[in-house]
């Protein structure tokens, strides 16, 4: 959201609010319409699973890499998933180089929480030797072009990249050492927890906001829905909502899940 008002900002705000009152949006979409999702063809990373997607003009690139290492002491029977998001300075004049800031950390935790709470990645399947050696999955999310709604774009790209990922089989040789085989195994995705981000402008809830909408909105929220229609995670961002607004947002998310899931499934 805008931290402070300038004349231009005020004009933009008034314009968008007026549009919404007329039931319209800047790019002609309906309030609950998601921008086109395009998956770019080609190989762009050295990862074991990747996806470069465009959600409207927002572009993100996600790569999944594998390593082997020790499990966490409290989950000796599970692989390790590490999530990281970088708001690259190429993506926006307001992004600066440096370690992940508050926004980048929040976004990566929101995507991470959706995936984990739906148990989407079968971490139990990723144990090489219980308590000693497991697979580690690094989910690295790169924001390349920021035109709003990074969370949903990164979630979609992450699910595709995870669904595409293949890791080498290994044989445990004892003493923390493995023999790496040529054979590859596909990562099992058990669920598709999809994030839906809404902003509030006046009385309206706008799904999949563009940057300008994010800038002037009073409030925003991200809701993850899984294949059973359960609410897996929520992150209210700035501003406030009524209970009714939140329930409505959940319902919209549930109604849109199949559309987005079919794009993801097609690309995996």
């Amino acid at each position, binding site marked *: 959201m805008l931290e402070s008002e300038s004349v231009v900002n005020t004009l933009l705000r008034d314009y968008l609010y007026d549009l919404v009152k007329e039931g319209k949006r800047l790019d002609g979409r309906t309030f609950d319409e998601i921008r086109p999702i395009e998956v770019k063809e080609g190989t762009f990373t050295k990862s074991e699973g990747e996806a470069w997607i465009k959600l409207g003009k927002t572009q993100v690139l996600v790569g999944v890499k594998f390593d082997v290492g020790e499990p966490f002491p409290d989950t000796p029977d599970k692989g390790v998933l590490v999530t990281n998001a970088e708001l690259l300075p190429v993506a926006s004049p307001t992004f600066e180089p440096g370690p992940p800031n508050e926004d980048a950390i929040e976004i990566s935790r929101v995507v991470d929480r959706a995936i984990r709470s739906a148990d989407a990645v079968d971490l139990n399947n990723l144990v090489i030797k219980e308590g000693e050696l497991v697979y580690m999955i690094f989910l690295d999310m790169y924001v390349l072009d920021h035109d709003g709604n990074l969370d949903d774009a990164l979630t979609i790209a992450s699910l595709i990249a995870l669904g595409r990922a293949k890791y080498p089989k290994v044989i445990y040789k004892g003493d923390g050492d493995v023999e790496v085989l040529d054979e590859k195994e596909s990562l099992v995705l058990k669920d598709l927890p999809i994030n839906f981000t809404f902003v509030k402008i006046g009385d309206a809830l706008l799904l999949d906001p563009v940057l300008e909408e994010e800038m002037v909105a009073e409030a925003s929220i991200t809701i993850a829905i899984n294949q059973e229609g*359960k609410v897996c*995670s929520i992150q209210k*961002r700035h501003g406030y909502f009524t*209970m009714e607004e939140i329930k409505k947002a959940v319902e919209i998310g549930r109604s849109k899940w199949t559309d987005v899931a079919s794009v993801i499934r097609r690309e995996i």
Partner: protein
Amino acid sequence: MPLYVEKKPERLITEEGVRTDGRLPHEIRPIRMTVGVLERADGSALVEWGGNRILAAVFGPREVHPKHLMLPDKALVRARYNMAPFSTPERRRPGPDRRSVELSKVIREALKPAIFVENYPGAVIDIFVEVLRSDAGTRVAGVTAASLALAHAGIAMRGLVAACAAGRVGEFVVCDPNHDEDMWGEADMPMAMMMESRKITLLQIDGPMTPEQFEEALNMAKRGIEFVYELQKEALKRPYVLVERRIRGV
């Protein structure tokens, strides 16, 4: 490292809905609030909630440093959520981690809608939430404490922000999850509201819920928040006097 190993209880809740600390699903842990525990801060509060001990302090409105962060037309609001090294079973290394960076933001966004920021153009309001002892629910206790500290500092507000979590344990929706339920339960849902206007300023979920469970959790959290709000008002009315109550039926 091996000094503090935690074991999952055999079961988190009985068929009758009795929880590991003896509470029923709708019951909240004992809470004690003390306003004005610090001398130098402009406002302060200590919230003891179950085994949590949360100290909140507010400084401001005051001058912004560094200058370039200043907002010409309203107050800048900053919040820091920080866990003490001695707040957890195993000693915690000082300094922010990713979780505390996120919680700092979430807490700031929970409180900012309640502050008349336009009353303090160019100033900063600094909110510090210090977790001295953690026992599940530190962010809701932190928001509750910080809201008291803001009021104690005399910051103009639309109303108090009160907070409480709900959660899911097996098929039960429970109020104010405890440590076991936080660790091994199915879902956690911290929530904060401006009670006067019934607006939700903090809502997070971690763990799946059906739409029905979600609605039940919203109501459960709301009832907890209403109770916390009453305690807050009492604590502010008689500052330096303790407010404590163990409730069995909210």
